[in-house]
Structures are given as C-alpha cells and as structure tokens.
C-alpha cells in the first residue's frame, strides 16, 4: 500500500476533518449561528465534491485502492455526488428550522456530514468490511439525528424504535456476511464474484448468507416485511431529518444493494431473484395500501417512500444492465421530488406539529398559489404523471423489468401506482377545492433558503421530466463498473 493510493481517498479524509471542525465551531457558537454553520458545512461538501472530481475520478479506468477496500469507478462517483447533493439541500433547508427551534445546530450539521461520509464509503466499498463500517457510520448518525429533539416524546419514540430494529438488522447482515466468509473464505467483492462464477454447484450455506445479507439491505431501504420502523421514525424525527433519511441514506443503501446483488452476487441471480421478487411486490402493494388511510402527512410520505423503495427493487429483480442504470436514475429523481415534498412540510410547520395533518393544507391555493403549485408538481411526480421526472423514473424501471420478462410484477406496480394517485391527490384536493375554514390558518414560514431549495427541486423535477438524457447517460456510464456489460 503506497502513499499514492491515498490520493483518491482525499475527499473522504477532507470531509471527516471538516466534520470535526464544524463540531468544534458549533460548541463555541452554541445555539446561534445556524445559518453560518450550514453555509460552512455546505462549503465543505462543495470542496469534497471538487476533490472527487479532481482526484477521485477513475481517469485510468476502474480500480481498487488501499488494499482492495474501496473502488474508484463511475458508479461510486455517481452515488457520492448524489448523496452529497441531498445532504447539501437538507443542510440549507434545516438552517431556518434549527433557528426557530431550541436546539443547537453544531452537532446537527456535523452528524449530517459524518452520515454523508458513511454514505460515500457505502457507495465505493469494495470489501464487505468497508461496506459494513460505512453503513454503521451512516446508521448511527441517523439514529442520533432522529432523536435530536430529545424533549419531544415522538422524537424519542422514533429514535428508540429505529435504533433497536436497526441494531437487529445489522446483526442479521453481519451473520450473513460471516456465513459468506465461511463458505468462500474471502470478503473481497471481486473475489466473491469470481468464486461464484467458477462454482456451478448449489451451496446452501452460501445462499443463506446471501439471503441474510439481502434481509439486512431490505431493512435499510425500508422494504416489506422489514419496514415497521419507518412510519414511527419518519413521524417522530424533526422534519428536516425525515427529509434527509428518506433520500440520502436510501440512495446509499441502494448503491450498496446494487454493488452487492448486481455486482458480487450476480452469478447467483437465479437463487436470490425470487426473494427480491416477493419483497418488491409486497413492498409496492403494502406501501401504497397503507398510505391510503394516513391523516398525518409525514406518515403518509413514509409509506410513500416504502412504496418507492418497492419500485426501485423492481430494477434489481430485472437484474440486467438496464435494471441497474434505471435504479440509479430512479434514486436521483426520487431524491429531488421527495426533498421538495418535505420542504413544503417544513414550510407549513410553524407551530408545534402544524402542517403535518392533511387538513392543514386546506385552502392553501387561495392564500399561497405559488406554494400550492409547487406542492402539486411534487405530488404529480411522486404519483408518476408526465411530464414530471417521476414518470420517467418509473418508465425506465418498469421497462427494464418488462424486457427481463417480469410482466406480472410490472402489472402489480402499475396498478399500485394508480392506487397511489388517491392519497397524493388528497393533498391536492385539500389545497385547491377546500376552504381553509380555520379561524387561524397556519401561516407559511418565510425562509429564502427553503424557498430556493424547493425551487431547485421543482426545476430538477420538471427538467428531468422532459429531458432525462444527461442523467441517463451518467448512470449508464456507471454500469460497466459492476461488470454488467
């Protein structure tokens, strides 16, 4: 291991150091300076992104560094930049929210940066150990962030449920990894793939290991039947944290999922495909059905995010190169439309938990037509109606499954997309057709940074809806990194 191997690792080193610096700066600032710290954190994310572009890119083709622990390839760069963008948007959205709360911003911003570091490791890990350690770094930061409003009962409840179930799922994941090591004698993804390609006998210990790793990953992406933590954690967490854990960590978990199942475990596709088929179908059905009866918007968006994980799983079931890049595109589109929708929940959340009930949206179109139009676009996109990006994302994922011959799965998903229209349009109906008959309608938060971030999400959602080619091209360039031709 020579010193030059550390050069592609510089972005991660810088981000870790920046996290320490933000933590120290936050101590001296106390409860003040939320906006300054957010800008500082955003700046360090920007420098990290520049470093990734300068030294972290696979200029001489994909390769591994530091003793085969990390990949340097376009797949990793794609997901690193995606999760960092999500973190940056959340940092700017949360600044005003933290200012209005009684909690200090220093640890909050530092934890977001450390979670981002974990997600970067998950996107580039080439060894089961480095992938797992990255996952734990992300997960531990998330548990703390969910419970960050420690005097709120709901925040505590969400954090405890998330932590206990998360620890259990980590145990299942590590047990699966240990079985893989026992069966193959290696933790290196490349070596695992080579060993699986070479052997043609069915080894049940190996398959059990793969399935248990799959269970761990299904938990992290919140798929049925490992979804029970999601509604409570999403509802209890401070809203910017809910926005964060619904996008960045989900994208990173899908990066690890793809790297493992369409990369290392791809030769055993015939063995694990049926499990993923059942999980995808159950997730799409349950997520959409359960969302129908929710009156709390955060809970509804939690079930909606479960359903969206199900749509993305369909691309993994397809198991083809198109399945891979369609999931990559889907994660990017989902990130922007979900962040935008949560941005509006933050905007309405001026008093306690106002803005969380569907009824709080009544008459929004009359009072604030711009905000209502923005929310309409995100609801359309989440439901998958053209010309928004959500439609393009679903189109790619579904057509990859049709090409692979999984017609029934696509039929289920399309029917359930139609069901999802009902609960997304409940909010639209409230906004446009109901009068806000409250004596005191919940006023909107006036926060330029939040407005700007929502505007960015609206722009990306509409732009990718009509012209998705650049992102598709970027995702397709990441396909050969996993050896799917």
């Amino acid at each position: 291991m020579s010193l030059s191997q550390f050069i592609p690792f510089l972005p991660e080193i810088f981000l870790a150091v920046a996290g320490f610096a933000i933590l120290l700066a936050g101590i001296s600032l106390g409860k003040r300076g939320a906006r300054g710290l957010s800008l500082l954190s955003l700046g360090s994310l920007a420098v990290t992104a520049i470093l990734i572009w300068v030294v972290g890119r696979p200029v001489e083709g994909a390769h591994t560094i530091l003793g085969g622990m990390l990949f340097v390839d376009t797949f990793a760069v794609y997901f690193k930049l995606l999760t960092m963008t999500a973190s940056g948007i959340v940092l700017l959205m949360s600044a005003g929210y933290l200012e209005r709360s009684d909690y200090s911003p220093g640890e909050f911003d530092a934890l977001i940066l450390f979670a981002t570091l974990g997600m970067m490791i998950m996107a580039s890990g080439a060894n089961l150990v480095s992938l797992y350690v990255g996952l734990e770094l992300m997960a531990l930061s998330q548990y703390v962030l969910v419970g960050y409003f420690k005097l709120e009962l709901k925040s505590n409840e969400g954090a405890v449920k998330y932590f206990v179930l998360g620890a259990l799922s980590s145990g299942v994941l590590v047990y699966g990894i240990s079985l893989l090591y026992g069966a193959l004698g290696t933790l290196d993804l490349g070596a695992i793939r080579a060993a699986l390609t070479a052997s043609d006998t069915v080894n049940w210990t190996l398959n059990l290991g793969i399935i248990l790793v799959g269970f761990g990953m299904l938990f992290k992406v919140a798929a049925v039947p490992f979804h029970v933590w999601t509604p409570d954690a999403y509802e209890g967490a401070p809203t910017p944290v809910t926005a964060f854990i619904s996008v960045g960590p989900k994208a990173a978990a899908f990066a690890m999922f793809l790297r493992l199942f369409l990369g290392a475990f791809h030769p055993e596709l015939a063995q694990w495909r049926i499990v993923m088929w059942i999980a995808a179908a159950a997730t799409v059905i349950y997520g959409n059905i359960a969302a129908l009866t929710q009156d709390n918007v955060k809970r509804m968006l939690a079930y909606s995010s479960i359903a969206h994980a199900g749509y993305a799983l369909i691309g993994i079931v397809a198991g083809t190169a198109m399945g891979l890049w369609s999931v990559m595109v889907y994660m990017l589109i989902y990130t922007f439309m979900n962040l935008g929708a949560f941005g509006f929940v933050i905007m309405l959340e001026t008093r306690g938990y106002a803005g969380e009930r569907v009824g709080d949206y009544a008459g929004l179109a009359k009072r604030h037509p711009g905000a209502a139009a923005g929310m309409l676009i995100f609801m359309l996109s989440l439901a998958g109606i053209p010309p928004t990006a959500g439609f393009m994302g679903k189109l790619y994922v579904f057509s990859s499954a049709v090409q692979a011959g999984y017609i029934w799965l696509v039929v289920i998903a399309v029917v359930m997309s139609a069901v999802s229209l009902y609960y997304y349009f409940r909010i639209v109906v409230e906004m446009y057709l109901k009068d806000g008959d409250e004596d005191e309608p919940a006023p909107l938060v006036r926060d330029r940074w939040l407005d700007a971030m929502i505007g960015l999400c609206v722009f990306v959602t509409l732009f990718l809806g009509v012209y998705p080619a650049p992102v598709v091209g970027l995702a397709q360039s990441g396909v050969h990194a996993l050896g799917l031709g």
Partner: protein
Amino acid sequence: MAFLSAHFVAIVFYVLAVLAVAGGVGVITFKNPVHSALSLLGTFLMVAGLFVLRHAEFLGAVQLLVYAGGIMVLFLFVIMLVNVRRLSPDAAFLSRRAPLAVLSGVVFGALIAFGVLAGSLGHPGGGATALQMVQGHVMGNTEAVGWTLYRHFLVPFEIVSVVLLVAMIGAIIFGRKDAGLEGRGGRMEP
C-alpha cells in the same frame, strides 16, 4: 480414556458452546436483571474459551478484557443506577405476540440450521499456524492480528474511529442537561 484424549478438543468445544447458548437463554429468561447480566457474563467467558480453542488467543484475551471486564461493569452500573429490581413486563402485551414470536423464531432457526447443515463450510483460515503468520514467518497471534488490522484493514479501522466519535456525540447529546430547554418541552416557538 482413549476416546476422551482423541476427541478432547471436540468435547471441550461442545461443553463451551452449550454453556454459551445456555447463558444467552438465561439473559432473556431471568426475572432479576442482575441475574441476566451475570448470565451474559457467562456467555462472554464461554465465547472467550471458544476463541482460545481455535488458537485465536488475542481475540480471547480481548474478549475477556473488553466484554467481561469493561462492558459487563457498565451493564451492572446501569442496573444499579436505574435501580430496577424486577422486570415485570405487561403480561397481555407479551401473550398476544408470543405465538407469532415463537413461530418466526422457529422458522428463522430452521432456516439457519438447514443452511449450515446442508451446505459445506470451507476452511478459510487454515490451521492454527495461519493465525500466527506474519509476512511468511510464524510469530504470535497478537502480531498477526496487528499486521492484518493496521495494514490490510486500515481504511475500515480508521472509519470505525469516526463511528465511535458519532456514538460519543450521540451519548453527549442525549445525556447532557441543556439550560433553557427544561420545562418548555422543546416545542417550536410561534
């Protein structure tokens, strides 16, 4: 006697393994939390014995120092500070979910047993000497662990230090008393 000496390692293994599992069962069945904690201590000791049996002496020693020493003391401290004498769970809550819990436990156990018994486990580490090799020379188990940890697994090792920092930050956030937050419920101001 000949049987005993021929199968000595296997016999010791099964005794330790059975005691370790029994300790684990004890943790969740004892009513008194102190008994549960001591039962967990038994499991830690047996697992340390298993490590030594497999010639991983360093891991065995660390298991004793960190788990049986450090973590166990922490458990007992918490039990003393919280001062729980007897855990009395809500009987209705448990009995309602018991059949489902037993069912899923049995299914999961059967799955594991099938996977481990039906498949073939390789021998990734080789024999005892493989755990003591450093750059082709036989040294000690501690040296071998050190060489692997600080060279091959350097990156995960460094990231674990950040993981521990995050855990500490979390403990401090939840543990400290914030001036100004008490009595206000931490609610958002209008």
